[in-house]
């Protein structure tokens, strides 16, 4: 079995300090480590390749402890972000490098055997070139290739030795968007065809979701969550993971005990909304901007939560826009949570409390006062009494078309609604 296991790995290199790294990567799996730049992802890869010695902990390849094995005996392929092709060799020689190394015989080979081996290497290089659609470039100098072509060469060079594990260090981030998308499909296809166990690190969440069977989120030298892309996307384990994967609305608040129609309420700054959760007491809630519906009038829908608000900042992201909505609430605080008239049956069953990993060891600073500047200060609401905090803002995603249809602009009154089940409580 070629599964990879990291046990209590601790690595220190310069400013990077990785701690308590425990991971199992299954045979044939496409595993992605997701984390912001500077989280120490490259350091982790280099220690798995044997290029760095961990301070503590073990690395296993199947049953075999390879922690102290030198890199050349591990059969672990490595592809760097900027390809690291050998500039003194042409494309074919780059790809064949590993074959000529590993098959070097101790005895001086006879001329005919040498020739035979050369033919063998050339044939394999040719095949690998075809697999990655670079067979027409084999005689080129690597410095004359485009970024995407260079990355394919680097990939071919790593794959040709048939490694137990392929390590990819931000393989797509140096490429322009068009090339990146093509190569991303290519990575997925090659992985399907060869089934090589692959570990990729990236800071790009979309890339991780597109490629990964499973994702580990790494922050400040620790693995904070491991799960399927769906897990990470829908059920982030910590507020920072939630923000990192694009849940723009993350609140620290309190779950009220009382259950109403199978829902509990989550209270934050005097605002209460319905959630589905087995938890109680202090907790976090995250809500993705695309799960919020904006409308000019109050909607009669299955969405449990509906609030009137004022449009704040509008940020254009090209294909869509982010609209900040500040709930105009205070007068309505006691009854903020307006339950829709329809039955709870529409909401789908309660989520089984799938918490892939425990809570963050460090409670994050309260994100409640996250209203961006430029929001009109509670128009028409009697804000200002001592002890009453301003209601939270929500960031919602809408299309250009809805923006035009609703004629939204800064200061417009809108209604905002979302399903109780869209809120992830943790």
């Amino acid at each position, binding site marked *: 079995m070629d599964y990879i296991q990291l046990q209590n790995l601790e690595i220190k290199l310069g400013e990077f300090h990785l701690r308590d790294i425990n991971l199992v990567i299954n045979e044939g799996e496409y595993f992605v480590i997701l984390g912001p730049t500077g989280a120490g992802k490259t350091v982790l890869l280099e220690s798995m390749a044997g290029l760095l010695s961990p301070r503590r902990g073990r690395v296993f390849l199947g049953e075999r402890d390879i922690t102290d094995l030198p890199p*050349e005996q*591990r059969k672990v392929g*490595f592809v760097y972000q900027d390809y690291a092709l050998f*500039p003194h060799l042409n494309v074919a020689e780059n790809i064949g*490098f590993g074959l000529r*190394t590993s098959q070097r015989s101790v005895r001086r080979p006879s001329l005919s055997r040498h020739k035979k081996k050369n033919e063998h290497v050339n044939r394999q290089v040719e095949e690998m070139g075809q697999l990655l659609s670079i067979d027409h470039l084999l005689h080129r100098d690597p*410095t004359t290739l*485009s970024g995407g072509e260079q990355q394919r060469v680097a990939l071919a060079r*790593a794959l040709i030795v048939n490694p137990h594990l392929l390590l990819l260090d931000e393989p797509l981030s140096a490429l322009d968007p068009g090339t990146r998308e093509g190569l991303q499909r290519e990575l997925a296809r090659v992985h399907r065809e060869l089934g090589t166990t692959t570990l990729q690190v990236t800071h790009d969440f979309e890339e991780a979701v597109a490629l990964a069977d499973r994702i580990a989120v790494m922050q400040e030298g620790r693995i904070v969550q491991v799960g399927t892309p769906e897990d990470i996307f829908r059920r982030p384990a910590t507020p920072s993971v939630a923000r990192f994967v694009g849940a723009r609305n993350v609140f620290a608040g309190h779950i009220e005990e009382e259950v109403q129609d199978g829902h509990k309420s989550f209270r934050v700054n005097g605002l209460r909304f319905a959630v589905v959760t087995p938890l109680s007491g202090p907790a976090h809630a995250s809500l993705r901007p695309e799960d919020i519906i904006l409308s000019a009038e109050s909607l009669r829908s299955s969405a449990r939560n509906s609030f009137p608000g004022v449009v704040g900042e509008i940020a254009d992201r090209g294909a869509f826009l982010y609209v900040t909505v500040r709930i105009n609430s205070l007068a309505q605080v006691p009854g903020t949570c307006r339950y829709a008239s329809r039955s709870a049956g529409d909401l789908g069953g309660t989520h089984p409390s799938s918490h892939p990993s425990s809570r963050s060891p460090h409670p994050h600073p309260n994100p409640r006062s996250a209203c961006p500047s430029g929001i009109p200060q509670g128009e028409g609401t009697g804000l200002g009494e001592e002890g009453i905090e301003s209601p939270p803002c929500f960031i919602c995603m809408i299309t250009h078309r809805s923006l035009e249809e609703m004629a939204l602009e800064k200061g417009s009154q809108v209604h905002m609604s979302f399903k109780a089940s869209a809120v992830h409580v943790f």
Partner: protein
Amino acid sequence: MTSPFANKRTLTFTLLGALLLAFIAWPILRTLTSNSPAALWETLLDAEVRRSILFTFSSSAIATLIALVLGVPLAYLLARVNFPGKRLVEGLIDLPIVIPHSAAGIALLMVFGRRTLLGKAFGLVGLKFVSAAPGIVIAMLFVSLPFLVDSAREGFEAVDARLERVARSLGASPWGAFWRVSVPLAWRGILSGMIMMWARGLSEFGAVVILAYHPMIAPVLLYERFESFGLTYARPVAAIIILICLVVFTLLRMVNNGGNGHSSTNHARAGSPDPAG
């Protein structure tokens, strides 16, 4: 391309630079042109002159080879490994450049002289340094090795360490990565260091003359002709030596620049828009 005379500052700098160039070129040209062709030819036929020139070349070449074997590994370590006292080692390597060369000769005499421990030990295997070819080689080695070590170190530093790591991950041993990746990529730095060291060795006088006046290397022969027979007899010898050094130096620089030219065309091609990409 703007004209070098585009503004007053550039004009001033050009004139100052030209002065310095003339300061180098004029004396050399004067030496080369002040001799009649017949006098030059006669000097060339002088067996003593020819022997000393060949002897100088080969001594410096041997010194360069010794530094290649001992200095390139050191250069690699300095480029790749951080260790306590590294600055000290780097300073030590450059020390021969700042020591007056006659003082360097005295220092070598203190260690390799006839009555010293090392001198005696080498004497047992029939190797003597004072007034002998090995003394000339170590004098050249001492004063010119910084050129090779520094240039090779820069060559290795310019090789991305990750290329070696990739080679290791592809199954190359530490030796394999060194020979198949580091050396081919640092080769230009090593070669240009060898050329500089060899050229510097050729021109050494001070340290050599302290250890071994005889057998005579070309600079010593020139000095002797000047002292014993005067300028008229020294002049053609100087011209021959300069001429030969010019020819050899130009040839070696062409070899060196040939390599550089290759890499710069690569960069130019890499920079241009790629139709396939």
